[in-house]
């Protein structure tokens, strides 16, 4: 078995492996994690098998601290229930979320803006009839409101990284205060209920974080890309002045776990 510390070299891993590994590294040991369908499931399972064995996973559909032996394909999956602590329902897990128990959550989105506002509802005009309807928010905005940290996993495209998203499905760091709609810091809208918000965005090109003003900046760039290339794939003027360097590639042990223990069937990792 290879050592965890041995990092894979360029060409020895696929983009998805890097995404899963980078996402897993956002989990701290002991974290209570809210994970959605897809890549986040790989990330939390990888984290638990490596540096965060005491992390606990809650699924939106109601399963708490499952220990699946086969990779679940969605949060409703029966596989999540294997050796779970509790098989509850939405009311229980959302109560825990709103009570402030969730440390970190993984989310996705179709569009994001410089303040971390995310759109999963509709592209273009919303009303009276939408130009293009997406899935809708689901629990994304709730989890993003109520967890201490959230990590977004997204595809890096110019049309997805926008100055302003067409519809704010999920609240970033500057958000409308209704009924006026004036954009104000998240803290102002949530007051005593404020717990945190987007802490990282991981794409196929880099890892982004948010500064003191809640503005996104590029933190690390994935091996094989330059900060300028990332900037070119944003519609807004991305801050690349704080780049710390390259994103750490996956370890060889992490890749082995992903392909042989976590997803041997090739459900997500083809």
């Amino acid at each position, binding site marked *: 078995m290879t050592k965890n510390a041995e990092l894979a070299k360029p060409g020895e891993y696929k983009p998805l492996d890097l995404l899963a590994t980078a996402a897993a590294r956002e989990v701290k040991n002991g974290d209570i994690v809210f994970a959605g369908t897809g890549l986040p499931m790989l990330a939390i399972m990888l984290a638990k098998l490596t540096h965060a064995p005491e992390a606990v996973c809650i699924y939106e559909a109601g399963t708490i601290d499952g220990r699946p032996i086969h990779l679940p394909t969605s949060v409703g999956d*029966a596989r999540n229930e294997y050796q779970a602590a509790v098989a509850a329902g939405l009311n229980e897990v*959302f109560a825990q979320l709103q009570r402030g128990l969730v440390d970190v959550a993984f989310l996705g989105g179709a569009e994001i803006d410089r303040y971390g506002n995310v759109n999963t509802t509709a592209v273009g005009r919303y009303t009276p009839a939408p130009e293009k309807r997406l899935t809708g928010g689901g629990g994304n905005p709730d989890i993003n409101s109520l967890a201490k940290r959230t990590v977004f996993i997204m595809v890096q495209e110019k049309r997805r990284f926008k100055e302003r998203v067409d519809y704010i499905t999920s609240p970033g760091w500057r958000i409308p205060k209704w009924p006026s709609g004036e954009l104000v810091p998240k803290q102002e809208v*949530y007051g005593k209920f404020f717990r945190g918000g987007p802490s990282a965005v991981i794409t196929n090109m880099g890892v982004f974080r948010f500064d003191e003003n809640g503005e996104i900046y590029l933190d690390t760039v994935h091996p094989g890309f330059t900060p300028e290339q990332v900037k070119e794939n944003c519609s807004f003027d991305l801050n690349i002045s704080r780049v710390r360097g390259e994103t750490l590639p996956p370890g060889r042990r992490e890749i082995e776990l992903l392909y042989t223990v976590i997803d041997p069937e090739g459900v997500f990792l083809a």
Partner: protein
Amino acid sequence: MAKPEKVTLQEAIRLIPDGSTITFGGFTIWRRPMAAVYEMVRQGKQDLHLVEVNGGTHTEVLIGAGCVKIWESCWVGHELYGKLGACLDRFARSGKVIVEDYSHVHMLYRMLAGSMGLPYLPTYASLGTDILNPEYDNLGRFGLRNGSHPKIPKKKYEIVRDIFSGNELIHVPAVNPDWCIVLAQMVGEEGTVRVKGQKYSDVEAIRASEKVIVIAEQIVPEEYLRRDPDLNLVPPYLVDYLVELPWAGHPTGCQGMYEVDGQFIKNFYEKSKTQEMFDSWAQEWIFGVGDHYGYLEKIGVRQLEDLRANQVLGYSTRMRRGSR
């Protein structure tokens, strides 16, 4: 009457008038009463008002078949097997379906409020989003919040300042659907309902609704379920009509019984992208098969056995899921 009436699927669905407000048990592509949804399409239900904690493949079938007028929810799609609701996209764009967007917590709390006999519940989930944009209140824009529709609240939500916390939060209005249809793994002869595994928001949907139809994969001795009342979901008097029908959730999954039929949903999703393709899919899989058993015959024993859950693990171990 404390006991549900045992009826056929056709009889149960015939009881639902056009224009009803309806909700379903299950979660996205899990434990959805698909056989009931297909039968609603066969019976040509019109102007349905769906209020769902979340949507899924069943929602798309109903919308594509032209049964739905209003959809209030937070999400529709097919998880891994179809990234969005193509029918909803089409019907929303053309204005044939009015969409009212909430968040998942909002929808859950609307149903929970209804199930607790409360007119609303408070929450601060999803503050600062366009869900609360007053211009995006679609039912209001269409003039449907004038009080003449008993199942449409006067406001989408209300902003309140709370004296206890000193904070702003919102009240989301209760919903009490006319009908709720739930799929359960086991129901007792007298109507006690047992749901295995994740409960999703089934109990809230059942308690909130005026009439409840439960479709049981199997009806079992009442006495057996009552040996372990810790495992049961609701008592008989919360169920009005009971239908026994195996595989009633296909192509969605049912814990301990069968797996999600991902290939079937993927194929449906592809066909749902145009109305023409949807119509021919519906002809093939809903009208052409005649009834639920015709549908199962068309799927075939081989596929059903691949989908059948391993009785120890609760999910299929025979079905090929990935690329390896």
